[in-house]
């Protein structure tokens, strides 16, 4: 095996203090990037979670709708028009809107109602851990998420509360259906949701369209657009993208997370570059000796790149451990940090890139080295 990796390893571990400083720099940077990216992914998932779980090929939405939580209304007549279009198998109404939850102790807390037909296509609660989703067909039945037990002062199936002065009973409990706004999602039948949110019986927030088997979704979408000129018809992917773009970029939240990640990268690059440069300067005599005994520039660059890669690997491993601790610590919070396998791979590539880019200054320094300096030192 070539001695270049060994020399790089020894150079790196020869000065433990500098190595620690380098690794801390990398870890700090990568953890910062991980957290920001993790929040970004988590936020993106959360803002589209309802769209992702809805049983729909196409969404008929009020014109100008920016995101799922946009509480505008459509008329039922649009649904019947939609049903007359070839290729449409069903068009399930969905009602969303804010309401007030009165806790058993008499307090009030805002909630976000989601009502669909429990017997048909729509948006049913998922991850039900207690009770049954189809129990929402029972008048007054609601489903809540266990992460909001404290807010709603309700902890088990069968308990009663009030929404807008109407008595409700919790008949299903879900796990992990959280809102990034921290306002609890509460599921009910569409009729009850209309009642709780003050929506007229002939109105709905969305119509969730299923196309007939074999029908071309895009063609059906275009037909619906032609048939329903006062609404917008979007595929699930289009609505998802619109919703995500609104929250991520329309509100500036995504930019803030992205900027945080960039800041982490810049800080990390500067720290690693500084330590690699200083390490190279300290070993300049050795690099000059290498040059004097006939080493090519490429060989010396290889040593420095190996140093950078070793630093990256050590830093990444430690940052990964810390990252997973952060993931576990935030798992039950309103906005958990999410790390996906793809993100882990991307972070590894990013760490390596960052460290290699950081080595450029050191390489430039060593490229200008005068081998004759070995005679004067």
């Amino acid at each position: 095996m070539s001695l270049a990796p060994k020399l790089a390893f020894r150079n790196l571990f020869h000065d433990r203090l500098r190595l620690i400083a380098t690794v801390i720099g990398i870890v700090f940077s990568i953890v910062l990037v991980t957290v920001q990216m993790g929040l970004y992914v988590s936020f993106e998932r959360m803002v589209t979670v309802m769209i992702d779980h809805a049983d729909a090929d196409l969404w008929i939405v009020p014109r100008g709708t920016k995101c799922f939580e946009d509480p505008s209304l459509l008329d039922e007549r649009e649904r019947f028009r939609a049903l007359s279009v070839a290729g449409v198998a069903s068009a399930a109404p969905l009602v969303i809107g804010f309401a007030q939850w009165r806790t058993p102790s008499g307090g009030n807390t805002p909630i976000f109602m989601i009502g669909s037909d429990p017997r048909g296509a729509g948006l049913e609660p998922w991850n039900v851990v207690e009770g049954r989703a189809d129990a929402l067909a029972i008048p007054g039945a609601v489903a809540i998420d266990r992460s909001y037990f404290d807010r709603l002062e309700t902890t088990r199936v069968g308990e009663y509360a009030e929404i807008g002065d109407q008595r409700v009973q919790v008949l299903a409990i879900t796990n992990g259906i959280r809102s990034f706004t921290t306002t609890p999602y509460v599921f009910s039948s569409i009729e009850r949701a209309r009642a709780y949110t003050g929506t007229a019986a002939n109105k709905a927030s969305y119509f969730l369209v299923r196309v007939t088997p074999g029908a071309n979704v895009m063609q059906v979408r275009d037909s619906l657009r032609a048939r329903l000129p006062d609404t917008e018809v979007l595929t699930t992917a289009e609505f998802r993208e619109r919703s995500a773009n609104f929250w991520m970029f329309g509100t500036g939240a995504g930019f803030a997370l992205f900027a945080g990640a960039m800041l982490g990268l810049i800080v990390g690059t500067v720290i690693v570059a500084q330590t690699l440069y200083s390490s190279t300067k300290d070993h300049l005599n050795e690099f000059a000796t290498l040059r004097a005994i006939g080493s090519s520039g490429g060989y010396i660059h290889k040593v420095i790149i190996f140093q950078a890669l070793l630093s990256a690997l050590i830093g990444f491993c430690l940052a990964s451990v810390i990252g997973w601790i952060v993931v576990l610590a935030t798992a039950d919070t309103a906005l958990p940090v999410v790390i996906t396998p793809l993100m882990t791979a991307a972070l590894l590539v990013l760490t390596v890139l960052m460290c290699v880019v950081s080595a450029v200054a050191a390489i430039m320094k060593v490229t200008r080295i005068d081998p004759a300096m070995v005679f004067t030192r």
Partner: protein
Amino acid sequence: MTEPVIEAIDAVKFLGEGAGRVQALKGVSLAVGGGELTLLMGPSGSGKTTLLSILGCMLTPTSGTVRVGGRATADAGPEELAKIRRENIGFVFQSYHLFPTLNALDNVRLALDVRGENSHRAMQKSKEALARVGLALKMASYPSELSGGEQQRVAIARAIVSNPAILLADEPTAALDSENGHAIMEVLAEIAREQSRGVLVVTHDPRIVPFSDRIVSIEDGKIIGDKRPADGEARADKSGTAAAERTDKPSRKDRKRKP
């Protein structure tokens, strides 16, 4: 002298810039052949190290020609010069310049590694080189665990392991006591004698004169003397200093007669 392995012809070198610009070499010509140990002697600032750097392809002359193995180096860029160095020249430095984080064997192996030599073969050659300089039992030792003399032997092993045509040594005994200095010069003389390599040693040290085949004197950037000690005029023995004081002209033949 055999065909020159390395030569400078009318080499001129200016160092520094502006008001600090000085002429370190003023038209120096020097050729070193294989199988002889040449001493380059002169006071500080005489241009010894500049000449050594130019002959070693680390500096390029302002004017004049340098040839290594018959090839002119004038148009060579830094990478080409590095290639000439690794294929033709071995270096021994005053302060050894060993890598403190590598053991003796790896320090020697490094000279072959930069040539891209096969790892197994490089290991074998490095062991042989270390054995040749008497360090067969110290291969695993780190520089900090070796005496100055031993470190210089490792440096010599590193210089000869790639089988260069010429060895350039810069004050190889300056940091050593007389016993170790003597031992190092014996090794260098042996390399010149037995392996027919050219060895050029820059030195201030009169104690090593008895080991030379040729003494070149330089002063103010000019060569002022170039002599070959005549046979029988001196002998290098264990107390080479005394011999050197009697005369500065020991011969290689004399050294061969040494017990």
